[in-house]
């Protein structure tokens, strides 16, 4: 699974370049997120625009990633597609993340 990380000013944007985060790749995703968030000191936006499917394992891996963030800084999510958005809402996990329509709007926030 490819995570593409870029910096816009002080903000790290991590783009998931895969269409699924599911049970088959969740552990791999968690490892890659650990690498990507290793040096994070400020805002981090996880861009999920390409992801059109996530299951409970993938959701768990994103919650695990949130726990790697520096204290007091939330992991922000952007570009949730319908199926992904539904999973966050049904489990009420939408309430623990800052969620933006897209990475672009997240940068303006």
């Amino acid at each position, binding site marked *: 699974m490819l995570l593409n990380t870029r910096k816009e000013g002080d903000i790290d944007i991590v783009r998931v370049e895969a269409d*699924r985060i599911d*049970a*088959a790749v969740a552990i791999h995703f968690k490892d890659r997120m650990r690498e990507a968030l290793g040096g994070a000191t400020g805002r981090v936006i996880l861009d999920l625009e390409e992801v059109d499917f996530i299951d*409970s394992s993938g959701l768990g891996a994103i919650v695990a990633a*949130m726990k790697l963030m520096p204290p007091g800084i939330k992991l922000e999510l952007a570009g949730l597609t319908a199926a992904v958005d539904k999973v966050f809402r049904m*489990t009420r*996990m939408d309430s623990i993340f800052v969620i933006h329509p897209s990475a672009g709007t997240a940068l303006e926030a």
Partner: protein
Amino acid sequence: MIAERLEGDVFSIHGTVAAVPDAVTAALLEIRQHLVQDGTARAPHWEIVVAEVLNNIVEHAFENHLGGEITLRLDFRPAGLCASFRDNGHAMPGGMLPPSPTADLDVPRADLPEGGFGWQLIRGFARRIDYHRRDGCNHLELDIPLADPAAGMTDAERARRQARK
């Protein structure tokens, strides 16, 4: 897996899946492909429910390593999906569907749950869930309403979808 149109506006997909995570992903992609070929737009959450059921069977009935096979049948109708699953792995504990208590999210970050979402999702999207153990097999049947394909879409996605037309 076999896909066929049946009488009464039913699009039926049935077959077997090996009880390992990669095979579950492959099966879901194959089902998607059949649905694309069938051409009817469906609300996307059918896949979450089917995935969670298959993941649970792999993880619990077959403990991730016992090997085994899951037989599934998905009957897509205009109003929803009737999905049935059979496997010869371990029975559900107590012979019943597991509880899925609502997790407390008002906790320090380190204590947030990283699991237990599977049944929450299945229960949330399915209208009817029926489980029984018969002849050494688990039988699980669910009804999942899928009436409006656009119902769950975000505004951004509706716009993207519109732009593609």
